[in-house]
């Protein structure tokens, strides 16, 4: 038995999906196709307990996410509870549904950091991608409020075929918003994004241009804004250590209290997820079947098992391995050593200019 598995590592981050409800309809959403209904959502007291248990387990940062977290009427109470538990609180929001007044209360509740997503650099195209008229203007207004109160802001620019050529303009917009950090987040194909893959997939030329543009922008804006970007999966040769390794650094609680090793984990059939209504977070982290399934390296097959990088990338993403090969234990086919690697290139070529299937 691998002795390093005697005691699981302690998680650092908790993704709290407070609700799956969201006013936007972004076709790249990574929420599952079967969205959890409001009636199943955990109540305020349950979340407060989860935050306390998370801190005791070692979690330092909580990402208040969704759906749109502001769709929860108790967002201020939830933020207070997370703060009181000693967690660093990061609000991941579309900015739609947060009034200036609410944001003031969130700030008073001890909110530490805000992340606002942007869909494009022009209101017309941005609102079209979001499937919500007026979203762009709301983002601008909330960004102004966040920076006015001196709270650090990250802009999350979700990139795909329709906007990847605007990477420079989107970084400029992030600077205008007052962000100190911008994530160039290429769409990852899970949930709704997988359904819209052919409509969202950029071309190889677009990706090459965007990678070069980011290099230039980093030099140009050094010291003003940090630009985080990675090569999108379908055009990469090496897989990414998804969520920093399965059951190693982070955990995700769904609106109804299911605890997942990553937000897409439910796409893998046969995994058993425990719920915070029945188990403590520590018990789930240490003992639940879903967390044990791909923790460490014992589950690996070749080419991962003997790979010198197995402790760095942990075989890549389990959900992607399953989605593309039908075997969740296979190497992530993004890896050039995977026997299925050619498939990734073929799928990247399977583009179609159909209408988006908006998340509803």
């Amino acid at each position, binding site marked *: 038995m691998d002795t390093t598995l005697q005691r699981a590592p302690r998680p650092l981050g908790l993704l709290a999906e407070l609700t799956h409800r969201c006013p936007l309809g972004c076709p790249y959403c990574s929420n599952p196709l079967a969205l959890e209904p409001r009636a199943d959502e955990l109540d305020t007291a349950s979340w407060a307990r989860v935050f306390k248990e998370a801190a*005791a387990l070692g979690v330092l940062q909580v990402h208040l996410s969704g759906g749109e977290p502001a769709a929860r009427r108790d967002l201020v109470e939830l933020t207070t509870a997370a703060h009181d538990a000693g967690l660093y609180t990061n609000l991941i929001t579309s900015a739609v549904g947060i009034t200036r007044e609410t944001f003031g209360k969130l700030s008073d509740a001890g909110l530490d950091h805000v992340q606002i997503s942007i869909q494009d650099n022009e209101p017309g195209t941005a609102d079209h991608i979001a499937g919500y008229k007026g979203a762009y203007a709301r983002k601008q207004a909330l960004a102004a409020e966040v920076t006015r109160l001196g709270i650090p802001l990250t802009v999350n620019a979700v990139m795909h075929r329709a906007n990847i050529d605007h990477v420079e303009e989107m970084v400029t917009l992030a600077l205008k918003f007052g962000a100190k950090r911008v994530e160039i987040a290429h769409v990852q194909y899970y949930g709704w994004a997988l359904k819209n893959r052919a409509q969202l997939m950029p071309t190889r030329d677009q990706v090459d241009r965007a990678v070069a543009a980011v290099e230039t922008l980093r030099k140009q804006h050094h010291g003003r804004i940090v630009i985080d970007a990675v090569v999108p999966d379908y055009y990469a040769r090496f897989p990414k250590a998804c969520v920093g390794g399965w059951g190693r650094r982070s955990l995700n609680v769904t609106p109804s209290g299911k605890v997942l090793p990553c937000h897409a984990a439910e796409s893998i059939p046969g995994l058993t997820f425990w719920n915070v209504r029945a188990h403590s977070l520590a018990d789930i982290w240490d003992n639940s079947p879903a967390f044990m399934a791909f923790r460490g390296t014992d589950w690996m097959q070749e080419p991962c098992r003997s790979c010198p990088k197995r402790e760095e990338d942990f075989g890549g993403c389990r959900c992607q391995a399953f989605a593309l090969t039908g075997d969740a234990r296979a190497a992530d086919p993004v890896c050039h050593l995977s026997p299925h690697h050619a498939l990734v290139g073929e799928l990247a070529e399977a583009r179609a200019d159909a209408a988006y299937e908006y998340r509803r």
Partner: protein
Amino acid sequence: MSESKVAPDAKPKLPRGVRLTHNEAQGGWVLLAPERVFKADAIAAEIVKRCTGEATVSDIVDDLAKTFNAPRDRIETDVMAMLTGLADKRLIEL
């Protein structure tokens, strides 16, 4: 590389979005910033705890020298070095 020398009458404080917290499971004090985590040793934690924006660097050095019954000169050297390092990483405002 340090940007500035710390003035004894500066009143250091943590900027918004940076927080010192104690977490038993992670082995003690940690300084949290957007997307970043820094483990703080006991000395660093004692210094950062006193960076309230009200106490001057001199006050902090006096307080530490008294609390830990240690020579003021040595404490001052440690505090200056620590604050310079934290300011360079934008984890503290002077």
